[in-house]
C-alpha cells in the first residue's frame, strides 16, 4: 500500500503536475521580490561608497568621466588626471611652516596634474590614499592649514556648482579663471609605515579615479 502511494505521488498527475507552472515561476518570483525590496541597496550602499573605479597607473593620464548635479540638474564631468608622485612631506601644501604631526604618523604630498574645461565646477572633490588592505586615509585641511579643495588651484579654483536662488547676489563666475591645465600638491597625514597602494579622487560617488602608485 505504501509503495503504491509513493509510486502514485511520483508518477501520477498529482500536486507537482497541477502546480508545474507555479513551480516554474517560483524562482522568477523570488528574484523579483528580492529586486523589489532592494532599492535601498542602491541608495544606502552603492551610491555611498567607492564602487566604480576608473583606473590608471602613476605617470599615465586617466580620462575620468562622471557626472555632477547642481540646481540645474545633471551635467557631464570630464577631467584628465595624472598621478605624478607621492613623496614624503614636511610642510602643508601651501605652507612653509614645518608640519606638527602626532607621534607615530607621517605625511605625504600627492602631486597630481589635471586638465579640464575652465568652466567646469571641480572644487568639491575628495582625495585620499589607500594601503594594500584597503584602509583609506583622507585629505584633511587641518593638517598644515591646507586649502579646502585638494584638486583645484587654491588661487583660481574655478566656478562652484550652481545653487539656484542661493547664488543671487553672489559672484558665481569663478573668477579668476582656472587654467586649462594645472597641478596640485595636497598633503595627507597617515600612520607611519603604511605602504600606499593607490591614490583615489572623486566628485560624486560611486565613480572614482584610482591611480596606482608605482
Amino acid at each position: 500500500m505504501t509503495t503504491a502511494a509513493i509510486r502514485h505521488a511520483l508518477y501520477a498527475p498529482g500536486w507537482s503536475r497541477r502546480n508545474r507552472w507555479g513551480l516554474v515561476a517560483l524562482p522568477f518570483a523570488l528574484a523579483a521580490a528580492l529586486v523589489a525590496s532592494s532599492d535601498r541597496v542602491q541608495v544606502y550602499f552603492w551610491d555611498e561608497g567607492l564602487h566604480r573605479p576608473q583606473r590608471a597607473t602613476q605617470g599615465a593620464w586617466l580620462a575620468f568621466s562622471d557626472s555632477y548635479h547642481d540646481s540645474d540638474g545633471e551635467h557631464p564631468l570630464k577631467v584628465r588626471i595624472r598621478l605624478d608622485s607621492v613623496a614624503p612631506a614636511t610642510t602643508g601644501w601651501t605652507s612653509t611652516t614645518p608640519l606638527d604631526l602626532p607621534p607615530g604618523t607621517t605625511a605625504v604630498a600627492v602631486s597630481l596634474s589635471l586638465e579640464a574645461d575652465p568652466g567646469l565646477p571641480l572644487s568639491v572633490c575628495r582625495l585620499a590614499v589607500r594601503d594594500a588592505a584597503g584602509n583609506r586615509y583622507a585629505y584633511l585641511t587641518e593638517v598644515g592649514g591646507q586649502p579646502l579643495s585638494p584638486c583645484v588651484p587654491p588661487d583660481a579654483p574655478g566656478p562652484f556648482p550652481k545653487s539656484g536662488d542661493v547664488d543671487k547676489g553672489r559672484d558665481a563666475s569663478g573668477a579668476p579663471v582656472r587654467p586649462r591645465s594645472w597641478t596640485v600638491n595636497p598633503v595627507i597625514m597617515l600612520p607611519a609605515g603604511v605602504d600606499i597602494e593607490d591614490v583615489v579622487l572623486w566628485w560624486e560617488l560611486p565613480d572614482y579615479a584610482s591611480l596606482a602608485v608605482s
Partner: protein
Amino acid sequence: MSSDDATRRVGPAFPTIALPRRRRVARRAGAGVLVIAALAAGRAVTTAYQDDTGVDEPYLVSGSLGRPVALRYADVTATGVDGSTAVSPNLGMTTTGVWLVVPLKIVTKGEPAQVRYAAVRDTRGRVFVADGSRSQYSPGLAQPGIPRYASVLVELPPDAVPGAHLRVALDPLDQRRDSMADIDLGLTETQAREWATRKDKLPVPVPANTPPQAPGSTT
C-alpha cells in the same frame, strides 16, 4: 530489466472521488484559519517580550573606564572621568547639577570617520545627549589608525551620576542596527555629592590628535 520496473503511469492507490462541496469549503476555510494562526503566532512571538522595537536597537558593546571598546567602525576608550559645577567652554559655564567630563580616545578602522554620538544614560534609563551648546561633543574627523582625542561634556542632575554609563556611536541621527559603546563610568554617590558642590572650573580640551593633559585623565 523486467517489465515491472519500467516507468509507467499508474493509477492512484486508493479510489479518488470529488469531495462534496461542503467539505471543499471546509478544507479551504481550514487552510485560511491555519494561515491566520501562523500570522498570529508570529505576532505573539515578536511582542511576547515587550520588545516590539528591538530590531531597531543598536548593538551595545559593554566596556569600562580605561579599556578600549571594539566597535564596528572604531575602538573607543574612555580614558577618565571628572565632574564639577563649572567648566571652561563658552567662556565658562556653571550648573546647579553636575558637569561630567569624559575624555575619549578614538581610533577609527578602515576609513576616516567622525564618531559623533555621545550620551550619558543613568540607572533610571534617562539619556543625556551631548549634542548642544551646553552639553557638547564634537570630535572631528579621525584618520584610521591615528588616535583622536576628544572630550564628552554632559550636564546632569546629581542623582543621575551614580552608576551612569557613557554611550558612544557613529551617527548622531541614527544609531539603529550599528554597534554602540556602553561604558560603565564606575561613578558613586560619593562622587556625585562631591562634584555637585565642587567649584573648580574643569578644563575641557579641544579635540586633537595628541592626548590632552586634562585633570581626570588616567593615561
